[in-house]
């Protein structure tokens, strides 16, 4: 530690700290543009010049390390003079167009110009003229305002791991942009909007729609992945105008993924309904709550009377809040049915009895960046949980050995020590690492571990998992979608155990952990308590049929991994209640009543992230029209069905009931069980994932997100050799058959897909007619 003085205030500072950091901690304001605590130091704007005793020239506070006895003056005449001069230089080329600039009112440059600027310009010469590049659907540009601080450039390089924006040219001719016209495609791209200290990079969807002083910021939590990023919704009147990150070092630091930031725009979709609707002989009718809820309750009651409780079920979306999931399962169980499930993207439930209380990351999110070794089984972490990918990238850049065993190769934006691509033999490849790990540990091979040949790559992975302080084996989303999830999970846990590494799960939904703890699974009640009635998982409900279904914030035609089976089950049911904000054509087809709930920023609730962290929030704005918080709808349904325990007056009453779930500790013990991998009969294998902007109804309807490159189209992605194999070389459309379903899909030749496989994404309308996820498909001419 060193002792320094800033403006006469004595301070203790860490060795090597920069003056600006010490000042920031002490709350002493030093103006700056290029410095940002999460980025490397560029020291190119010179706005932070301060006076240091015994130094003749002013020094940049962001690039001046503290020394013992240093005396800094941030407001002396010399410091102020230097700051004023720098500001004048920065402004000579600036268009001074604050009245038409979106940044106005929250612009660092504007504020500093007020603080340090003259009120008359002395600059009479010509200003530079620059063009504004089109960077895509998310970021608007007005490059005349750019002060070349390079924050946006450093962000791409250092944090997003995709260096897309650069500073080309030199001196006055420097331009920030992509140089060759291109969009900015990083999944974290819009953070540059927050970083840009001026109005050069602003939010395209928000452009010209509001002024910061008209907005009220309210906190919220993002439900689109298991991170639980903290955000701030800016509200004007009753409308959400934009979403910004809320700094939370241990979760999302200062960032938001583009998905977290722009998903709210899905709420503006034309399919959104704001009054309840019932299906009558004459067609769909908007109605009032009393009639709609009575209609829904009577329908469910009829099913109950005629077919009994075993014919009643509920499917819960994995972004629904803990309170909503809890009341849904409570309602089902109060009516005598255990048929409730939220694992709509999974097909393999063989090990459900052995599982811990909820899918747990096995560590804190922040610990990911300290991993020395990691093996991810079935994960495209970068697109599935962008902010966790960003953390893992830091570990990799620090020298962490990060390996993947995936059904297909994904491009990662960090060094990957091993990526084993195993489409047909995934289980064997993981077994090979398990064998290598057991051999290194000198442990016995447990009974039932599949035979596998151990190669160099497997040994290297196992060795990396044994060296260094912190190591982890993480089970990703792709494993959850796979029919051999049980085997993959058992072996992942086995590898972790024998290497002394953490075992963790990257849950597939934004509130998967919360749904488990709330009891939205057929075999366990709230807080993992045993249930009186064993229910059926969603897949048995879909395959064997149920007569009455309650859907909570899910669209099975896109969310379910077997979309066709799911919609058929819904159509065959006698009565379907959909609690959903959107009335899609599919929902109008299968539902009998649609009850519009408030969307995620419009109502209070709680989400549990992958660390097991409970985060409660309030609504940021009242829901539009007649839409009501889903927990209230469920409570009224409970009352109308004479169910016991639906007297909650406020969300706090619901939360009080959840206290036992809150007390459940995180645990990741997966006992070894003898796996029996499902056999694969040969033929073309479909590989599947949910693309980043197809994960839930809101994201799927966010127009700007759907215009980005990451909005993966429903198509067949296939290597040329595979096409030739099945005599379809050169075809641009093919008919794909899977299970009972078939679809006509465009072909996109992609040599990154293993031969003998096709990649067909889930979660898109185009692929909704297909019969499943991972599995055999047939292809013929269109």
């Amino acid at each position, binding site marked *: 530690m060193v002792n320094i003085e800033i403006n006469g205030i004595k301070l203790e500072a860490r060795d090597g700290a920069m003056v600006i950091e010490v000042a920031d901690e002490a709350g002493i304001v030093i103006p700056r543009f290029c410095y940002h605590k999460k980025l490397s130091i560029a020291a190119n704007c010179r706005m932070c010049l301060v006076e240091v005793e015994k130094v003749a020239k002013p020094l940049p506070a962001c690039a001046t390390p503290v020394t013992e006895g240093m005396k800094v003056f941030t407001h002396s005449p010399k410091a102020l003079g230097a700051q004023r001069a720098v500001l004048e230089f920065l402004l000579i080329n600036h268009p001074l167009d604050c009245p038409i600039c979106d940044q106005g009112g929250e612009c660092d440059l504007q504020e500093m110009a007020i603080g340090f600027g003259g009120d008359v310009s002395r600059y009479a010469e010509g200003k530079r003229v620059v063009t504004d590049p089109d960077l895509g659907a998310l970021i608007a540009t007005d490059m005349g305002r750019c002060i070349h601080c390079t924050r946006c450039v450093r962000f791409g390089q250092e944090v997003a791991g*995709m*260096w*897309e*924006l*650069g*500073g*080309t*040219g*030199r*001196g006055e001719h420097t331009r920030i942009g*992509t*140089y*060759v016209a*291109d969009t900015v*495609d990083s999944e974290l791209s819009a953070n540059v909007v927050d970083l840009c200290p001026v109005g050069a990079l602003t939010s395209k969807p928000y452009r010209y729609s509001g002024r910061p002083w008209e907005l009220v910021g309210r906190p919220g939590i993002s439900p689109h992945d298991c991170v639980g990023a903290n955000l701030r919704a800016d509200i004007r009147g009753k409308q959400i105008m934009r979403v910004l990150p809320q700094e939370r070092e241990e979760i999302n630091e200062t960032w938001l993924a583009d998905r977290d930031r722009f998903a709210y725009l899905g709420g503006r979709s034309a399919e959104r309904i704001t009054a309840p609707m019932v299906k009558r002989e004459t067609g769909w009718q908007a109605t009032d709550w009393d009639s709609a809820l009575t209609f829904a309750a009577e329908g469910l009651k009829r099913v109950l009377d005629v077919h009994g409780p075993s014919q009643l079920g509920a499917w819960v979306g994995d972004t629904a809040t803990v309170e909503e999931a809890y009341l849904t399962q409570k309602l089902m169980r109060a009516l005598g049915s255990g048929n409730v499930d939220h694992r709509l993207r999974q097909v393999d439930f063989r090990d459900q009895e052995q599982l811990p209380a909820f899918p747990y990351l096995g560590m804190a999110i922040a610990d990911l960046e300290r991993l020395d070794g990691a093996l991810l089984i079935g994960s495209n972490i970068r697109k599935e949980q962008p902010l966790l990918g960003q953390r893992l990238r830091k570990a990799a850049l620090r020298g962490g050995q990060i390996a993947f065993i995936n059904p297909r190769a994904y*491009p990662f934006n960090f060094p990957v020590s091993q990526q084993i691509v195993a489409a047909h033999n995934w289980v064997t490849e993981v077994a090979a690492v398990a064998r290598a790990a057991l051999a290194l540990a000198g442990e016995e091979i447990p009974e039932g571990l599949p035979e596998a040949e151990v190669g160099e790559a497997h040994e290297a992975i196992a060795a990396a998992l044994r060296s260094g302080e912190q190591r982890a084996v993480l089970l990703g989303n792709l494993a959850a979608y796979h029919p051999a999830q049980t085997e993959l999970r058992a072996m992942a846990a086995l590898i972790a155990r024998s290497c002394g590494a953490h075992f963790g799960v990257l849950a597939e939904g934004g509130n998967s952990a919360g749904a488990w703890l709330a009891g939205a699974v057929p075999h366990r009640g709230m807080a993992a308590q045993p249930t009186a009635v064993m229910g059926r998982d969603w897949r048995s409900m879909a395959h064997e049929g149920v007569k009455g279904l309650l859907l909570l914030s899910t669209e099975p035609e896109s969310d379910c991994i077997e979309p066709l089976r799911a919609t058929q089950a819904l159509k065959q049911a006698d009565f379907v209640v959909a609690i959903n904000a959107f009335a899609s054509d599919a929902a109008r087809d299968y539902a009998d009543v649609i009850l519009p709930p408030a969307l995620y920023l419009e109502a209070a609730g709680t989400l549990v992230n992958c660390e097991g962290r409970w985060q409660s929030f309030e609504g940021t704005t009242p829901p539009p029209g007649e839409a009501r918080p889903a927990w209230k709808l469920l409570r009224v349904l409970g009352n109308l069905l004479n169910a016991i325990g639906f007297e909650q007056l406020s969300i706090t009453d619901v939360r009080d009931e959840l206290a036992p779930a809150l007390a459940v500790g995180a645990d990741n013990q997966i006992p070894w069980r003898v796996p029996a991998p499902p056999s694969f009969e040969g033929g073309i294998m479909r590989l599947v994932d949910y693309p980043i902007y197809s994960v839930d109804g809101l994201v799927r309807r966010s127009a700007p997100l759907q215009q980005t490159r990451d909005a993966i189209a429903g198509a067949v992605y296939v290597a040329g050799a595979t096409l030739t194999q099945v005599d379809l070389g050169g075809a641009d459309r093919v008919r794909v058959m899977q299970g009972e379903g078939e679809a006509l899909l465009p072909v996109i030749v992609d040599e990154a897909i293993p031969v003998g496989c096709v990649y067909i994404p889930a979660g898109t309308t185009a692929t909704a007619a297909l019969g499943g996820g991972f599995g055999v498909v047939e292809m013929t001419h269109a």
Partner: protein
Amino acid sequence: MKQARGNIDLITPESCAEIDRWISNYPADQKQSAVMAALRILQDQNGGWLSHELMDAIAAYLDMPPIAVYEVATFYSMYRLEPCGRHKINVCTNISCLLCGSEEVVAHLQERLGIKLGETTADGKFTLSEVECLGACVGAPMMQVNRDYHERLTPETIDAILDSLQ
């Protein structure tokens, strides 16, 4: 994917060999250090200028993001990003040369060649450009023609230099 759009087949085997020689001068994990040499080699291969495609090819060859190559190529005036004449004339107009009369040098060249700064003569023989300090202030005013420096310029010496070029 962005990082790999370049087509390295655009690099001739001779250029490859030369670039590889530069790469071997640097540690194995730092081949991007050869970027400046690679840009020069491909510029020569391409008759004096670099197209986007060639810069992308370098990016792919050296395993770096294309924008990082563009940043280097646009920073230095010795890389040309548009087709140019057989002879490249770069006149320094930075401070020392300015004080010693670079304005007259530019005026004379423009008049003699009938083109403005940044332009190429109709016969494709000369391209005239303005550059920043070339580190030859001691001989200001100066210009660089292709790889040669010419110092203490006067209209007469300029004419002689131009006349000597084919």
